[in-house]
């Protein structure tokens, strides 16, 4: 119980946030953060625990989002059905793909996931009659306020973290790690590696699809370039996992927080800090810095990848002892 105290406390704090904070802007950021917790922890199971790095999380994300959107446009039912079915659609796409492509190992599998995402993106673009093509799908959001979405996202994030913790402490969880460490050894010990890799993929696809369905409901608009996006979805998912800590339960949650903050910091020019400073001091150069910074968010992303991989290859949570030692000059407590 003591071990779970901190997460439960955090959950309680997050549940209480809308009571205090009514500002839509911050709620929006928090919803994005919670969505990325879901995607990041799903990626972490397949990549961090099972060792099958996926570069195509957007494929499952898009499947979930399109399930919700297509149900609404073709059958006229509520997009919330997508939240019930989106995850399963992603699994339905993921399992045949995994069955075929788990014959490949390591980087080759990563490339195959990349190809899957590209094929789906082009497919969704070309099949205009069915998906609306580049016009995308636009729905009316069910709620005006952001608070219901916030609680749904929070429930999803909490459920995904709880299930991740449950999975990694169960028998399949140990099998996953054994596949990551040495697939041949795992196989020779009698583990059906193909089956367990598929299970791991199904889990990841399910939660990523759920996050996609949530995105459709919340944002109200999708098109192939938004949901099947390599940089904004797949790479971001990897970053969330890597920055937070590969192969740790709470790593992606930390990573999601850091990444959403960084993204927003660049996008808003450090929350308008430079613009404000420029206005106060009346200097034009600071305003110009603000303008440049807001354009630089992808550059910032790229540089962050480089720096994180170079100096914190195991992420904030994974390298926490190292950070404590370096920054706070504390011993890791043997």
């Amino acid at each position, binding site marked *: 119980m003591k071990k779970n105290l901190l997460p439960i406390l955090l959950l309680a704090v997050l549940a209480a946030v809308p009571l205090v904070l009514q500002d839509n802007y911050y709620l929006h950021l928090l919803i994005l953060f919670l969505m990325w917790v879901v995607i990041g922890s799903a990626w972490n199971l397949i990549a961090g625990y099972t*060792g099958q*790095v996926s570069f195509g999380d957007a494929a499952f994300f898009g499947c979930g989002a399109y399930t919700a959107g297509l149900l609404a446009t073709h059958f006229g039912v509520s997009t919330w059905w997508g939240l019930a079915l989106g995850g399963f659609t992603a699994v339905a796409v993921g399992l045949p793909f995994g069955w075929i492509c788990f014959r490949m190992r390591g980087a080759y599998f990563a490339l195959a996931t990349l190809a899957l995402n*590209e094929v789906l993106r*082009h497919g969704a673009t070309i099949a205009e009659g069915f998906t609306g093509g580049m016009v995308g799908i636009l729905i009316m959001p069910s709620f005006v306020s952001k608070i219901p979405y916030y609680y749904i996202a929070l429930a999803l994030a909490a459920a995904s973290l709880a299930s991740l913790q449950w999975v990694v402490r169960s028998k399949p969880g140990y099998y996953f790690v054994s596949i990551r460490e040495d697939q041949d050894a795992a196989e020779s010990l009698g583990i059906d590696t193909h089956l367990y890799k598929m299970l791991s993929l199904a889990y990841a696809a399910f939660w990523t699809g759920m996050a996609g369905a949530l995105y459709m409901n919340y944002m109200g608009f999708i098109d192939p370039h938004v949901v099947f996006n390599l940089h904004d979805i797949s790479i971001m998912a990897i970053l969330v996992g890597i920055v937070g800590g590969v192969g740790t339960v709470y790593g992606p949650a930390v990573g999601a927080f850091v990444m959403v903050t960084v993204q927003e910091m660049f996008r808003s020019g450090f929350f308008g800090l430079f613009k404000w400073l420029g206005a106060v001091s009346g200097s034009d150069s600071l305003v110009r810095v603000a303008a440049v910074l807001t354009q630089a968010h992808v550059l910032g992303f*790229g540089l962050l*990848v*480089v720096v994180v*991989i170079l100096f914190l*290859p195991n992420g904030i949570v994974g390298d926490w002892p190292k950070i404590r030692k370096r920054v706070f000059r504390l011993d890791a407590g043997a």
Partner: protein
Amino acid sequence: MDVFLQTLVAGVLKGGLYALIGIGMTLIMGVMGIINLAHGQLMMLAMYVTFVLNTMGVDPYFSLFVAMPLLFLLGVGLQKFLLNPLIKADTILPENQVLMTVGIGMALTEIVRFGFTSDYKYITTTYSNETFFLGKISFSMALTIAFGIAIAFTVAMFFFLIKTDLGRSIRATAQDKDAATLMGVNTGRITVITFGLGSALVAAAGCLLAPVYYIFPDLGGPFTAKAFIITILGGLGSTVGAIFGGVTLGLAESMGATYFGMEYEDIIGLTIFVLVLLFLPGGFKRLTKV
């Protein structure tokens, strides 16, 4: 029949350039086992070098002599300061190097976007739109020249790898790094040189492509994808395979565009990619043994 022949010619000409793009990638992948997801971005950079030189009145083909050494140095720097340190790092995932190249690619794209904005640039030369005819089949002048130079580079690369000392060291490192180290090859230096060479080759492809293509910062991604499709098709580390792979992809794309429709061009490449991975892992290299 004419349509078919025309498609064939267009595909082969395009394939020559693809081969040049693929060789750089296949070298890097073969020697270091790194999937360089910044490959297309390096080419994009070379195209911008060509563009800048062209505004100063330098012919795109002469800018080969500037872009290739520049990109060689950049490649050397990237490998030495960003990729090699990762080999020693103790991590859970071996794919960190791949991710690093993704980061490098993003940074390169955005830096270029800062300097030149997202606008489409193009280089006009006297021969950009010129064509000549053999029978009823038209050949684009620029693409034909590019094809010739690309093949020359490819053949030169092939003999460099087979005959020279350095080439042999590179192949030895690709086959077995530990054994090569034991035989006195400085494998650290070889990886650095290889990355430089790969970058220089893709820079050459960029210069050759510049007169016939638009230049914009986001051009890197699709070409990275093409590069590894070619590499997988041809087999890792195989120059001859890269030629076959490049021409196959070029043919498949132009055939697909003619007989299925333009929008299927990319899907065809990706489908071939997955099929080859599944049914011919190791690519054409397996069939030719070179």
